[in-house]
């Protein structure tokens, strides 16, 4: 930010380092990787790295949408339920039509519809998004069982369907490619387009954005739909990975995503946040998860550690911002 600042004293340097919360996150990630690999050498094995990346890709896809949504000052708790439903829809439509393309399209569009519903309820009916999406979550969790009593089995046996999650492009798994593409699009949109700038503006101060001629409602609606579509896409990948449409999949997924996004430095109040932070947040949470497994610790720690990490990261962010304000 300031090339003018004299890095002569140690104070400003340390300040500037700590100032950039992404550097702190990156350092945390490096420390974690080194720490884990010292005690378990297989951490750096190709299979393990690929497993981590595949795990990350699901969270990252939804996380990209959720980051934009939080920056715009809203939140979506229905993504977990939505992706379970989308997965069932995708599998069901593929079963019925025999076309993977149609199935995939149906799954993704279903997620988009859920996003549209959320967006309309929040922007038109003015319902607080936390409550609106908790309600949507209930509707979807009930609705998915009305749609299908049990898991939708793979009856079509199309290889293309399983390839969505288990296929490779060169050495890289397809979900990772998809996640990277989604991430790149979102990154460019948020960073280099006027649309992205409006998202920050609307989240930081909706009133000011409206006075300057923006339409916060339309923009928020768009971001809800995008998040919904991405949840649908994730549901499709998950259904492909599990080879069934599982109505109970994705329970608690929304919390993991929000945890990763917040860990990445995105503010719950809107107007602040970066996708790069979210990427680091996702990586850190999933490396911790993986570390717990390969170090053969009790897997129930997988719930405790992220909980502590989120609170700690938010605290560090708070300290940093207070130092900024001074």
């Amino acid at each position, binding site marked *: 930010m300031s090339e003018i600042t004299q890095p002569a004293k140690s104070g400003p340097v340390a300040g500037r380092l700590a100032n950039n919360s992404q550097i702190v996150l990156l350092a945390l990630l490096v420390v974690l990787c080194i720490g884990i690999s010292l005690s378990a050498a297989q951490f750096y094995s190709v299979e393990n790295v690929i497993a981590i990346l595949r795990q990350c890709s699901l969270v990252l896809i939804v996380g990209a949408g959720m980051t934009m949504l939080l920056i715009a000052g809203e939140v979506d708790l229905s993504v977990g339920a939505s992706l379970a439903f989308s997965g069932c829809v995708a599998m069901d439509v593929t079963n019925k039509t025999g076309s993977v393309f149609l199935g995939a399209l149906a799954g993704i569009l279903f997620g988009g519809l859920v996003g549209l519903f959320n967006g309309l309820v929040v922007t038109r*009916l003015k*319902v607080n998004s936390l409550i609106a999406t*908790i*309600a949507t979550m209930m*509707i979807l969790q009930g609705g998915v*069982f009305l749609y299908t009593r049990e898991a939708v089995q793979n009856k079509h046996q199309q290889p293309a369907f399983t390839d969505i999650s288990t296929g490779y492009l060169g050495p890289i798994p397809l979900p990772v490619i998809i996640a990277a593409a989604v991430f790149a699009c979102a990154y460019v949109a948020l960073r280099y387009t006027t649309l992205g700038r409006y998202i920050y503006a609307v989240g930081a101060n909706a009133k000011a954005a409206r006075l300057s001629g923006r339409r916060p409602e339309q923009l928020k609606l768009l971001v809800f739909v995008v998040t919904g579509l991405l949840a649908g896409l994730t549901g499709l990948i998950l259904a492909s990975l599990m080879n069934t449409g599982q109505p109970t999949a994705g329970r608690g997924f929304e919390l993991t995503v929000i945890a990763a996004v917040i860990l990445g430095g995105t503010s719950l109040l809107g107007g602040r946040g970066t996708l790069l932070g979210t990427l680091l947040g996702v990586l850190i949470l999933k490396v911790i998860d993986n570390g717990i497994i390969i170090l053969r610790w009790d897997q129930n720690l997988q*719930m405790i550690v992220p*909980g502590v990490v989120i609170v700690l990261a938010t*605290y560090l962010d*708070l300290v940093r911002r207070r130092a900024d304000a001074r």
Partner: protein
Amino acid sequence: MPQSLSLSAAAGPKRPSEWLRALFRRNEIALLLSLVALIVFFSLASDSFLTTRNITNVLGQASLAMVAGIGVGVLVISGEIDVSIGSLAGAVGIPLVVIMNMTGSLELGIAGALLLALCVGVVNGFLAAYIGINSLIVTLGSMFVIRGAVYLYTGQKAIPDDLMLESFYQIGNGRLFGAISYPALVAIVLLSAFIYLMRHRPFGRKLYAVGGNPEVARLAGYDVKRVKFIAFVICSLLAGISGILLSSRLGSAVHVAGLGFEFQVVAAVVLGGVSLAGGIGSLFGVALGVLILSFLANGLGMLNIATEWQLVTTGLIIIAAVAFDELKRRAK
């Protein structure tokens, strides 16, 4: 929400008559009418709905959400939120049953359970109110940590009540004079006490002031942090009491007890007209919100409608209620 904020800021400390008027201007009447309409509808539609047996059954179930809802209501009115109550309500069963199994004393078990709830409330409150971390994040964190700790301790198995104490069974399932179940009694007593606290004690006024506009509350000389801290402790303690009753109804400490409970309770609180922005709402409304959702779930069950529809209708009703509330506010 901004309108109401500026309103309370401009009006300053309210007189009791204004309190009353504000209360009736809000949606308690509409909620009460919906509840009555719901009961009338279900009693016409199903013979077994309006029976003493069924009504006591519903009230027994509603009281668990009611007890926790009072705490969440108090906290949300103070401008904060707690999503860890489901994990906590499940977790308190463990010290309760473990201590009871060891010592054979229900009282010691309850003391252990309440101590755990107190600790959680103090930690949540300290991190959110004094350190200033967003309460949604703090309690999301503790939700994970508490549930994870429960899984870790129990190895994802339920801990049975070895002694089968009659008193332990009674607190969740027994009835006073054979009529009012103990959980309902606990809920009614707590509700009355907290309605009194919120409306007639200085602390209640402080909660509304702090939630409505913390800056103004601070300038008025209130210790904003302390008020919010106490609200967190109250919320956790009530969730703990709710968890003790739950554990007695389940007859053991179940590791998955209370999963999703936080969403149900928050939904009921918001349905009851408490604004998530803080400073607006009443515990009477919360009670009505809980009752409406409980009677709805029970009535739909009576009509043999799949339980899945209950989730769907609950979700739709919450959206409709909050949207209606917002429209009404904008119309003014």
